[in-house]
């Protein structure tokens, strides 16, 4: 059972565009959602996260939009840069819980 789903599997955008990465989940008990960025040969690195009590979280060019009713969230990367080319993972857990359930990832490519 895939509890966290991501779409699209891969995404290509031009430099300067906004990339939109989608995530949905099944377990209504999840209330903490971190997004991780991973470059080839590296471990995942926390990019931005949100608690389910919020519907939006911004950090620079990165924004999470969260819809608790629909169990959906999205990561918007504004003014995309070639250096943003990486795989992005949506994860979910119960707040204060140690165990993350990860989505399959979205591979983003930003073309200059």
């Amino acid at each position, binding site marked *: 059972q895939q509890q966290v789903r991501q779409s699209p599997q891969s995404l290509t955008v031009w430099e300067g565009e906004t990339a939109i990465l989608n995530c949905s989940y099944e377990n209504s008990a999840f209330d903490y959602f971190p997004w991780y960025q991973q470059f080839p*040969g*590296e471990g995942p690195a926390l990019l931005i996260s949100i608690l389910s009590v919020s519907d939006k979280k911004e950090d620079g060019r990165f924004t999470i939009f969260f819809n608790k009713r629909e169990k959906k969230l999205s990561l918007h990367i504004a003014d995309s840069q070639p250096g943003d080319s990486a795989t992005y993972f949506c994860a979910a857990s119960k707040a204060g819980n140690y*165990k993350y359930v990860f989505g*399959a990832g979205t591979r983003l490519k930003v073309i200059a």
Partner: protein
Amino acid sequence: NAGVIQTPRHKVTGKGQEATLWCEPISGHSAVFWYRQTIVQGLEFLTYFRNQAPIDDSGMPKERFSAQMPNQSHSTLKIQSTQPQDSAVYLCASSFQRGEVFFGKGTRLTVV
């Protein structure tokens, strides 16, 4: 802060041999996690220690996998009688209490 250190970065073992993977968490972090990453299954939780005590090993294959944390500065993941399906990137992560989870760069295990 060198981050979470994993050694070796790459390991090749013959089918049926034993593999031991090492992790040095970030100093002061009380929680240590092991995840496994494959193309097919994605990122999967294996096990978790808090203050060196094993808390949850629900993700560990029961028969051949074991993890230990003999002191606060390192943890090991041991795979006995390795099989080709064990080939994966094994990621160690640590966090301070219930804070941000930092991942290491992983050990790529190849079983031939």
